[in-house]
């Protein structure tokens, strides 16, 4: 039995090393003086400086953040509605199709979704004149469609585990259904909503394929800039950018994790 534990532990450690090694290498190389990112030339933070003056990257980052934020808010609303529908209503017309529609965006390849959305936007433009040219709004719409699927999964799980008699108790005490939702359900599923928001935000910030398909002139997102830079080979500024992103996200996730943990303990 002990030998097995050692074996498992080794695999686990290897797995984590595998997962985190590349990320660490990114960060280490971002401090490399040499332009040839992987050949060490000394310690330097100049790439961070250059990065912060790179208009193209900064502009793209700002666009991405805007899109991601709007997308996250809309995805949370739509995803929560879908989760409510699937958990609270046992039977309704279109339930089976809603289940499929809510799962598919998470699993189907982005290229298919991106292509199909582009075709939709082109046809819509031809038919009703909107969207007039693709850009921030089309990217946002595409992201919302995919993000809401993830939000639904997260919220649905929390909702399903919630004691339904809480809602019944509120109804019994005189609260109308809408009040029940805002006064009781929402506070209880709030962590899931927050997690969903973050998830949607992250996915949007990270998306390359969808944005490439449905963007237009002047709307270049951060991943698109990174991609075009990276196609040409390694770039130290990208390393710096990568490191910043990793640190930012890790701290955010760590904080969220701690907050969630504390709240779960309190509501036990």
């Amino acid at each position: 039995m002990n030998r097995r534990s050692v074996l498992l532990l080794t695999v686990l450690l290897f797995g984590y090393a595998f997962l985190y090694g590349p990320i660490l290498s990114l960060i280490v190389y971002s401090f490399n003086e040499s332009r040839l990112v992987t050949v060490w030339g000394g310690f330097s933070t100049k790439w961070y400086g250059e990065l912060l003056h790179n208009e193209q990257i900064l502009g793209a980052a700002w666009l991405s953040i805007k899109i991601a934020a709007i997308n996250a808010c809309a995805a949370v609303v739509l995803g929560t509605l879908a989760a409510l529908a699937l958990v609270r209503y046992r039977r309704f017309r279109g339930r089976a199709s809603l289940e499929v529609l809510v799962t598919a965006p998470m699993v189907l390849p982005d290229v298919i979704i991106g292509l199909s959305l582009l075709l939709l936007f082109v046809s819509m433009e031809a038919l009703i004149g909107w969207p007039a040219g693709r850009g921030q709004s089309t990217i946002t719409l595409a992201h919302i469609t995919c993000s809401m699927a993830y939000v639904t999964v997260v919220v649905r799980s929390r909702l399903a585990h919630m004691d339904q008699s809480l809602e019944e108790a509120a109804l019994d005490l005189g609260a109308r259904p809408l009040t029940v939702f805002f006064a009781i359900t929402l506070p209880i599923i709030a962590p899931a909503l927050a997690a969903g928001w973050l998830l949607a935000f992250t996915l949007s910030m990270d998306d390359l394929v969808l944005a490439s398909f449905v963007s237009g002139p002047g709307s270049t997102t951060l991943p698109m800039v990174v991609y075009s830079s990276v196609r040409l080979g390694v770039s130290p500024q990208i390393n710096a950018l990568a490191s910043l992103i990793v640190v930012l996200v890790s701290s955010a996730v760590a904080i969220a994790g701690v907050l969630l943990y504390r709240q779960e303990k309190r509501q036990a």
Partner: protein
Amino acid sequence: MTQPPLQPAPGQEPSAAPAPSVCLQQITKSFGSTYAVNNVSLEIQQGEFFSLLGPSGCGKTTLLRMLAGFESPDRGRILIDGADMTRVPPYERPVNMMFQSYALFPHMSVADNIAFGLKQASMTRQLRTERVQEMMELVQISALARRKPHQLSGGQRQRVALARALARHPRILLLDEPLGALDRKLREKTQFELVNIQQRLGTTFIVVTHDQEEAMTMSSRIALMREGQIEQLDAPRRLYEFPATRYAASFIGSINLFEARVLRQNGDEITLASSDTDSELQARCSEKMLPGMRLTLAVRPEKIHLLADGELGPNRVRGRIKEIAYLGGVSMYHAELPGGKRLQFSQSNVLALAEQPLRPEQDVVLSWQPDSCTVLTE
């Protein structure tokens, strides 16, 4: 003591006699192909402590939920204080419920939990605070006002749930297995407190339980349910002493059942013969029975007493003691009759003895009064 309800009962008709608090008329509800509740009708008067008793699946919880408004019956009507509430949603009924899981709102303090219903009724803050105070004192949890549910023990949570459900001074309070999660000592204590509170407030309490002891202790009337229908509706004493069916007799407490047929009847004195024993059995039966009719004779263990050697008595049977269960206050004995039938009888341990007064394999003669047994036709 009961203040007028916050919502006036809609459409109340003026009548001479007070309308029953709750009136169920031919309520039927099925889930899929099974009947959860099958054509149930009953009336509950204001101020009653009423229990719905039965095993799981008998429909008692479904009935309660229909009263609360969480399910609607497929057929039948629900009248509360004379008004038809069959299709009225739960938040518009003058009924409140105490849930089995307590269902305390985890993100609110005890005080806020209790105040929730009052907020929905648009009570002013001043009045709300007073009412919450009053409720907390009623169930003795005033010290816990600021705490959150997860910081409370099971018994404390139960009190909060009770206070919250009573805060709006409902005419009717529904309780779903209120004592199920409590340990035995706490259960006994809480039973008395519940009865006290109910009598002080004059609220109609309707309790769902599977625990017959609980129902017997607290209720003014019990509806014994079985497979969606009411088996017997009676006060506890009548239910116990005069069960109407074999099921009712077996469900509550212990019972001895004899398959018998009628020999003769003289007024309300009836004589039966049973294959389980040689003696003729005497009982009381007000209905007209014909000789040869098949009946069941039911007699409770505590009604059977020992006869001394040579002593005579009605319903005299011989038996040999096979098993003894010592329960502290009483001892339960199983005696085997000549035909093989086992008879249960109990004796209070009136004297403090180190050994049982009766021993296994001891031969005894038992007897019971004709008044103390019941004749059952079903």
